[in-house]
């Protein structure tokens, strides 16, 4: 009987014309801006974002330095 009532209540809610929204517990880390992370709300670590392009001077200089380091290893 209880199960039937629950199923009926669920079906009624699903059939309502309400717009779905994402419920989020307020006891989780809040969404939105952070004190240190600013507007983004999080520090972003993007794969490859810190490496310069392969055809850049910065990348070529880094490769040259690495080669020099390899040759002059103690």
């Amino acid at each position, binding site marked *: 009987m209880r199960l039937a009532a629950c199923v009926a209540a*669920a079906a009624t809610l699903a059939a309502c014309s309400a717009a779905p*929204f994402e419920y989020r517990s307020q006891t*989780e*880390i*809040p969404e939105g801006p952070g004190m240190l992370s600013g507007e983004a*709300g999080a520090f972003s670590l993007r794969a490859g974002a810190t490496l310069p392009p392969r055809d850049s001077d910065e990348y070529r200089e880094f490769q040259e330095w690495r080669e020099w380091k390899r040759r002059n290893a103690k």
Partner: protein
Amino acid sequence: MQKSALWFAAAAAFAGAVQAQDIEVKLSGQVNRAVMFADDGVQSDSFHVDNDNSSTRFRFAGTGEVSPGLKAGLIFEVEYQSSPSNLVSFADRDGASPTLDERYMDLFFEGGFGKLSLGQGDGAANGGVEVDLSGTSVAHYADISATGGALAFRTAAGGMGPSMGSVLSQQDFESRYDRARYDTPAFGGLRLALSTGAKDSRDVQEAALWYAGDFGPAGKLAAALGYSREDAAPGGVDDEVVGGSASWLASGGFNLTFGHTQRDVTATREGKFSYFKAGYKTGKHAVSADYALGDDQSAAGDEAKSMSLAYVFTPISWAELFALAKKAQLDQPGTAYEDITLVMLGTRLKF
């Protein structure tokens, strides 16, 4: 030959997926500290605590597109609490030395089929008795024992009784554990969640219905209905919990919340918990009053109550200042216990 072809096809598909993905990992967290004053009728003292309503924690979260329409992600979240508000007591004002405690070590795949999760994370019904739209959950919500849960009820002569947490547990199903979980896509705001896994070396299964709908001028409604079952310990009974909660937030800011659970504690005893909350929020302010009842949780005939008032001020989106005043009572056949009174003032800062 067939194996080689299969391997090559899989490798090519994987390489394509890797090239296509745009993976970003985000680090976020919060610090939540408070000063708590408690009086159990025999002793009174102050405590510097980590607010266990929403503990100090940080997380790494990342998502990437595996293929069009299929997303993969991970969540790694740990908490680090110094003197948790649910563990401090007059005998141990520090609670315990801070340690990194796991909350989520979870990965998931999400697409048109729904969401499949694997790892340490929420069981399907976790939070099902804690649905709350009041805006004051950082100060108080259905988890009554999150503030002062380790404080014991005392007799006038100083005798120790059960702790607040053992008679006023919200019995929120099986919390987080190592599990596989499936969530259906939402149909009109309604979705079904199922999970199975292991906790404390015992098998656990959970099922829950979750609902979240915005009725425009009539406000928002969020609700959950859940069931959990943990296999019995040797000589015990299966730990079964049934219950749910609903919270309605009117467009004007008035809100109402209700929750209820029943748990098979022994073969002859069923622990019950009921929760009521009424509140109002407007702009940067939210205020609420709640009332909780716990029956037969620690022993047959136990009747515990908690009443509290809370105020939350959010001057800027990343900072909340909160105040809580709470009184807890225990009626137990044959023993008279003093009331426990609590006041807590603190702040949660998201970094």
